[in-house]
């Protein structure tokens, strides 16, 4: 578990790498692995000065019932890193397919008895 929000002087540490690392803590609400391992994070861009982050997320289906939960979970997790503005863009192109799941993700899913 990471420490709580950094002080303003720490805004220099707000980087894309920090975001990717933090998103490994956010699981897909319907799968026991993270959004990163699911291959749902399409892109991350950070503006450290403005303490702003923009995350491009691809959902597995347009009718994903967990859209709002994912938005909340990501926002809350990145706020904990010290971001004040978290913008989420839903990306549909290229469409998410299970080929985007990472090797580690596949192993974890296999442990849960889910083969992909």
């Amino acid at each position: 578990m990471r420490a709580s929000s950094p002080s303003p002087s720490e805004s220099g540490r707000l980087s894309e790498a920090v975001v990717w690392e933090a998103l490994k803590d956010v699981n897909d609400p319907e799968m026991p692995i993270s959004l990163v391992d699911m291959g749902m994070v399409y892109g991350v861009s950070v503006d450290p000065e403005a303490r702003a982050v923009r995350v491009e997320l691809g959902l597995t289906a347009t009718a994903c019932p967990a859209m709002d939960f994912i938005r909340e979970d990501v926002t809350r997790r990145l706020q904990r890193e010290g971001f004040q503005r978290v913008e989420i863009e839903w990306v549909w192109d290229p469409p998410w397919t299970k080929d985007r799941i990472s090797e580690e993700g596949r192993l974890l899913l296999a442990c849960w008895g889910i083969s992909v």
Partner: protein
Amino acid sequence: MSQREFQNPTELDERTRQAVYDLFLVLADTKHLLGLRYGEWLGAPAIEASIASVAMAQDEFGHARLFYGLLGDFHQAGVPEREEKPEEYRNFEGLDRAWESWLDFIAANVLVDGALSVQIEALRGSSYVPVRRMVAKIVQEERFHQQHARGWLLRVAREGAKPKAELEKALKRIWEPVLLWLGRPGSEHERALVSAGIQDTDGEGLRTRLIERLGPLLVEEAGLDLPLSNDAITGQWVLGTALSWEGFDDAFRRRSRTGPDPETFRQIESFLGHAYPVGS
């Protein structure tokens, strides 16, 4: 195609902006109501069909959510909020009231869902970037709908003379409205959408694509009697009857602005006042 791209509605000229807004609203409302109708068949004739109908309903709601999301940008660009009355709703007219039988479900699955796919596929290379980015995902999800439609159509058509005749009746009930829905040739809307590169062909082009897709299935495989035939010389599928455009409204893509019946409207009413919950 060497043409400019549009990232948001403010970059469109007024005429095109209105045509694009009308198109997206027609798609959003139609997919919303198609989803509602599919969802009413949770008690379909077989458990597999029940599962399929609610899965397809969910897809349609997902697509409606995407199109409603796009519309939010238009309101920011000054296009007024829509009214909140049934007659303002722009769904395909064959979805105004609940379907009477499973055959109506199949007919809509084949024709309405089929026409929606043809329309959306024509946005694949759209100059309007936000919609272009959604097309691949929607098309991916729609593939199953077409498989389902085809499977049930052939199953019923091969069941015997009576079910086949009833299926023909169900198809004919929405045949002309579906073909009209793709757009009136030469209308202001069609010209705006095509000249700005929003879609890659006009309503006539879309109709040709739809009947080229449906002809082999409906006539050759299922042996159904519909006003559609294959031209022996050109090899193309042609409509056997002229379409009647009387009363057709280009902005609503339907012949009357009556909207959903009272029972349906009660179900969607709460949705109307805040119809654009999800931004892109």
